[in-house]
């Protein structure tokens, strides 16, 4: 059996950053396993710009951002095993893998980093009524077909959901010659980044219909039209507001879900809010030595944050294999009023560096509000925020001295 100090599952931005940082922090042999035929993950189909503003202080495309890490991985002497699927991980960190070149093998890792990314919520999961014709795709699948394989997916397009990939695809398909009729969003606010709404919709006069959703899908073989209706505050369709849009394509950008097949099968505890594994300050899951970072842990909107979080996971994985982890029990982080989730969900102060980075999302749009940080139920710090939206992940850096003897930490919003 081959043995590695650290094995990362997935060679997207998370896996590559984690592998590099594990190596820098003293892990000897590090392996990254990738199911696709090349490294880079979903970045390879993101040919738009806006990547790397924080990490490289440059405006890069997805493939450029990925290539920087691929180059570093090669220079660092880290192996990437492509075309290889991890079928199973066990509690003692054996990985069952399958590839055309090597068949079925079992690898032993000192530490495992889960970095498989996420998948898209589908039309089926939303149970949108209507027929089931061709021409209904998730935005990411369409992005792959258009950007990587050079195929058009339609001529007249409606997009449901204003997630970032949907917004990006509204612009992409417009540039490729399609007519994007509208983007419908069931919530009263967009799930995407403000910059994407401006650059992908406003700049191309594509209407964003807030509080609207697709309520019927028509067409026998190929999509012929969709019906968009206004919804009330409970997200229920308002009768009489139906409007039919003649279109041959419906793209769905209605949410991303962490890919949890492997952690679920391994018995790793999951957080119903992030829908990814519960992690502690080290990005370690409920099984010691198995870490999770990037979109497996919680769905990010900027790759730069994926990189930062994954470097942390890599660093702690290296510490774990060197026996440097402090496993004194810690305390949970609690998402209070207005907070959708906080990552990490558990903190062991003895393992934290000088500052602790918390990532969180809010439940709704807040203008001019106060964000309270409470330690042991007492407000220890209040951050005034001008504008908070669910589509933009927030982060807070908290100095160690604030929480070193704490029993609980929570965040809440007062508007």
């Amino acid at each position: 059996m081959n043995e590695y100090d650290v094995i990362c599952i997935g060679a997207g931005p998370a896996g590559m950053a984690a592998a590099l940082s594990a190596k820098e922090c003293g892990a000897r042999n590090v392996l990254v396993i990738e199911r696709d035929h090349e490294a880079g993950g979903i970045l390879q189909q993101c040919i738009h710009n806006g990547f790397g503003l924080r990490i490289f202080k440059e405006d890069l495309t997805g493939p450029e951002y990925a290539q920087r890490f691929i180059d570093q991985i090669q220079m660092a002497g880290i192996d990437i095993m492509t075309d290889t699927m991890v079928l199973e991980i066990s509690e003692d960190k054996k990985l069952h893998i399958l590839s055309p070149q090597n068949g079925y093998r079992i690898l032993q890792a000192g530490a495992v980093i889960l970095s498989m990314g996420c998948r898209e919520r589908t039309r089926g999961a939303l149970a949108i009524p209507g027929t089931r014709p061709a021409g209904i795709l998730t935005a990411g699948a369409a992005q792959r077909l258009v950007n990587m394989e050079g195929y058009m997916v339609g001529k007249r397009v409606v997009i449901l959901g204003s997630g970032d990939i949907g917004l990006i695809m509204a612009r992409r398909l417009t540039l490729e010659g399609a007519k994007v009729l509208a983007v419908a969003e069931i919530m009263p606010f967009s799930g995407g980044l403000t910059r994407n709404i401006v650059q992908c919709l406003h700049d191309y006069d594509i209407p964003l219909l807030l509080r609207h959703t697709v309520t019927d899908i028509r067409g026998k073989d190929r999509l012929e039209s969709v019906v968009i209706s206004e919804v009330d505050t409970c997200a229920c369709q308002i009768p009489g507001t139906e409007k039919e849009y003649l279109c041959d394509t419906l793209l769905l950008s209605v949410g991303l879900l962490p890919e949890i097949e492997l952690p679920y099968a391994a018995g790793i505890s999951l957080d119903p809010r992030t829908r990814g594994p519960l992690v502690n300050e080290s990005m370690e899951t409920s099984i010691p030595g198995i870490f999770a970072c990037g979109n497996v842990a919680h769905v990010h909107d900027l790759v730069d944050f994926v990189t930062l979080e994954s470097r942390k996971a890599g660093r702690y994985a290296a510490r774990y294999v060197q026996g440097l982890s402090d496993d004194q029990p810690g305390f949970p982080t609690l998402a209070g009023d207005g907070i959708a989730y906080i990552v990490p969900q558990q903190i062991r102060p003895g393992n934290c560096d000088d500052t602790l980075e918390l990532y969180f999302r809010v439940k709704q749009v807040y203008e001019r509000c106060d964000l309270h940080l409470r330690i042991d139920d007492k407000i220890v710090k209040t951050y005034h925020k001008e504008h908070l939206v669910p589509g933009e992940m927030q982060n807070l850096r908290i100095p160690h001295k604030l929480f070193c003897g704490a029993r609980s930490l929570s965040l809440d919003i007062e508007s």
Partner: protein
Amino acid sequence: MKYDIVIIGAGISGAAIASALSRYARSICVLEKSNDVSNGASKANSGIVHAGYDARPGTLMAHFNILGNRLYPELCRRLHVPYTQRGSLVLAFDDRECKTLLELKQRGKENGIKDLRILTGEEVLEREPKINPEVKCALYAPDAGIVSPYELTIALMEHAMDNGVDLFTETEVLDIKKDGKGYVIRSEKDEFHTACVINCAGVYADNIHNMLLPPAFSIRPRRGEYFLLDKYVADIVNHVIFQCPSEAGKGVLIAPTVHNNVIVGPNAEQISDREGVETTLQGLSEVWQTALKTLPQLPKEQIITTFSGVRAEPDSHDFIIKHYEKEAPGFIDVAGIKSPGLTAAPAFANYVKEMVLEYFITTDEKKNYQHERRPHLSFHERSPEERNALVRQDPRYGRIICRCEGVTEAEIVDVIHRNAGARTLDGVKRRVRCGGGRCQGGFCGPRIIEILSRELNIPAEQIRKDSGDSRIITGETPKGKSADERI
């Protein structure tokens, strides 16, 4: 073209009859208007092999249900189609429903089922801890089973073709005429001359009948809508669970599928469009609300898809399986095959086979008849050693295309090249489940388009999702496939 026997329709009835007749030295073809087999009611139903207590004693439905149920284990073993006898429960929540259960039990007894039992509420909850604790009692039928209806239909057709039956897809019957002692059947492209016509045309069976004979029955399309849940909640039910039946049918069931998903449905709605397989807001919410009575904690976030099927409800309320010996010798109707049609199909296929053999008087058995169908490899169920051996033999076994269901490239290639092979994305899904899992083809869709295009040697733009002109790709991007040139 000349055939001894022409079967119209490649659903469960047509496929089962083709498979049963393929044992004999007669030339047989099956005409199907869609581009794949099992593309009507046979692909969208509950997939239940009923025990047989529902149908009224003395009906064809009751007769063939009981016989069919008994044939299932052996048939599915022979064709290598997954089948599990999970047993069924009909729940009663009040005294009136408990009384209905006793009637059902009595009816089952008259139909010939021996091992029906009434369970107390406590016994039910022991077997099904997650269902509504208000359950008073239940009728337990250990013989009820589950099967994938489209996989069985495809397997039957493949078995028939392995034994020499021809299949013509996208061949809609436009007209049937008497021609001397036989018949001539016209489609858009061809003419088929035959001595024997078997009408298995599902919701169109009355139209086919009326091409040759005076109207004798009419088919009313009845739609049923369904939800399919993720494998993550495979353990929410252990049996096929019905509520008490009503005039509208057997009602909303919750059942495990053979692939460990959970199916919830159907409702029953009389519609006018025979192709009306859309789902509706009202229909879906009716199904869900009704199912909550069985399972109050039914997890909405675990829905992976919804679908509906249109069943061929005959105005006679019983199957119509009849040889018109006088009016049209050699013409046989197999019509009105609604529930329990799936269960009954293997049995009435044998019955129709006997009719046909009698009609031809002398028919020899084929010497090289193959009883079994070649099994699917199901790579993910193999041991590590077997998997290694397979990858060495064909590296495409080492490439997982469908992450959700663990399907390899070699398995996809195999179902494309089998008899009655896959030609479309949904055709691949119904044979090896790619796209039937939780990502619903989001990841594997583009890869399967590529594989179909390569294996069938047709451009990717021509690959269809399902029937008709359901092409997925509308052309190349303006700059074509050279992504480098783009900004």
